[in-house]
């Protein structure tokens, strides 16, 4: 029942438990192409866990995922890649010993046939070219010493490389978990630039951040989580700093009589 009105991604009633702890508790989420959804909440609210369910790192205990209206199973990373979902993880997920090209295209290295098509090996030359392109066009990063292991690069650069990883493949949805956490001012601007460009290119973006300034800067909608539950969902125009903070901390906002009913409005 493919539905043209359906958003690109819809998650419904997601529950994820770790033993006795319910990290994600019956959360609904939707995001469409060309839309930037902010996911905010205090530490341990369940944001990272929710997106790891989406990317197949964890399996949900309950709930359903729909891509363009079709119910899908995402059981591992390969499945989510298949649906065009990429992620920049909070802990970056780089391999410290590999160099910049090795990390940017890990798992997606361009192939080359050798010995008359008998074997498929990595086309290292093309890999370096693609790396130069990504660094220059998308990250505006100078490419000196990109054959050094990434551990030799600064924290901010590693973060940029992690973002570059997600951009390195054609995708329909990018999740960014705290992409600005260890970046300097200029690198943060660059990240905003990337998000805006993704939006223009009709990519759906889920943007997780503790920094509400950053949320107001690039996001279209905000979903607030608290202790695993979804406590708010609104257009950015309806969001104020106070409202978001109150929701994040107390799970409600005084001036709003029925926040819950807004939160539960179907997405």
């Amino acid at each position, binding site marked *: 029942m493919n539905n043209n009105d359906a958003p690109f991604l819809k998650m419904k009633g997601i529950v994820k438990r770790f033993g006795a702890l319910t990290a994600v508790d019956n959360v609904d989420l939707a995001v469409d192409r060309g839309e930037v959804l902010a996911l905010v909440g205090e530490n341990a609210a369940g944001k990272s866990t929710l997106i790891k369910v989406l*990317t197949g*790192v964890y399996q949900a205990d309950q709930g359903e995922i729909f891509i363009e209206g079709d119910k899908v199973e995402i059981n591992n*990373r*390969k499945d989510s*890649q298949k649906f065009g979902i990429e*992620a920049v*993880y909070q802990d970056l*997920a*780089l*391999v*410290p*010993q*590999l160099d910049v090209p*090795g990390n940017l295209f*890990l*798992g*997606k*290295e361009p192939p080359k046939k050798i010995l008359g098509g008998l*074997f*498929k*090996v*990595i086309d*290292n030359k093309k890999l370096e070219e693609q790396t130069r392109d990504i660094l220059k066009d998308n*990250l*505006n*990063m*100078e*490419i*000196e*010493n*990109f*054959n*050094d*292991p990434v*551990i*030799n*690069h*600064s924290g*901010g*650069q590693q973060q*940029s490389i992690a973002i570059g990883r997600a951009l390195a493949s054609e995708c329909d949805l990018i999740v960014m978990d705290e992409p600005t956490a260890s970046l300097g001012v*200029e*690198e943060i*601007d*660059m990240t905003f*630039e990337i998000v805006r460009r993704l939006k223009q290119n009709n990519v759906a973006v889920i943007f997780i951040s503790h920094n509400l300034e950053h949320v107001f800067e690039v996001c279209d909608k905000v979903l607030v989580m608290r202790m695993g539950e979804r406590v708010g969902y609104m257009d950015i125009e309806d969001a104020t700093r106070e409202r978001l903070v109150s929701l994040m901390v107390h799970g409600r906002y005084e001036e709003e009589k029925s926040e819950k009913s807004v939160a539960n409005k179907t997405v």
Partner: protein
Amino acid sequence: MDKSTQTSGSKDELHIFGRPWTYQVERLGPIAAVIIFGAVVGIIEPRFLSARNVINVLYQAATYIILAVGMTFVITGAGIDISIGSMLALTGILMVFTIEYTPIPPWLGIWVAPLSGMVLGLLNGLFITKLKVPDFIATIATMIGYRGVVLIMAGGVVHYRFPAAVRFLGAYRLFGLIPISILVAFAIGALGYYVYNNTYFGRYTAALGGNRESAILAGIEVDKYKILTYVFMGFLAGVAALVTIGRLDAFHATYGEFMEIDTIAAVIIGGTALFGGYGRVWGSVFGALLMSMVVNGAVLLGFPYFYQYVLVGIVILVAVSIYTFLGTRRTT
């Protein structure tokens, strides 16, 4: 936008030929050690550098070079294979039995060694990935188990006088001078280097050894590549069996004992990181060569036999100290 251009974080470090100097030292260290050690011992005892002795040293080193190339991949994948000596013996006796007791012609029979090695390596890999036994424990268990099978099959009997096909790899010399085994060992080194740098197997082995979680997040089937490192190791243990048996034209059930220690030492001397993620194939080749040179040099210089252990121990300590020093610099 141009003024926000970022520069590389390791730019401040001194770079030689586009790489940090620490990397260059790491890369050239094992070769330099071979040359320096050769020169020093050669000055004290010129016989050390005679053509005959050089070939002899290389000849001794061939088995270890072959094993060290395989071990480089295993260790890069954050594994370790203690069972290689037993695999060498077991693949050897399987080949010997095939040739002695079946009508299979020797030129076909010799393939039993590398092929059975792949099966034994596959078993190691399955125990580690599917039964989740730690690499060290799993391969200690198979070291004992595989050796047991060798002892059951061979008993105390020495098998010897093999057909030419068996002796070819270990005993034959090109132009009556250069042992085939040396050429094979260096060819395997070159192949290993190519595989490490250019194949998905090589890249993903480094990735899973460097950060398993990240490799999984990148969609890499980590178990598959882990298993492949052990299969490759088993294959090379079979090749090493051919070289050893061919050279001595004999088989005894104790073959390969303690070889895992020397092989791991050669890999570590070569600059491969013991905890995975970072392998140096040529380093392992020269590490194995250096160990052979130390043992041979000690004999020529008249050191009593057991001193060679002490000397090899010192070489390992010096090498690891240097790498640790460079490694500390690398992460600061």
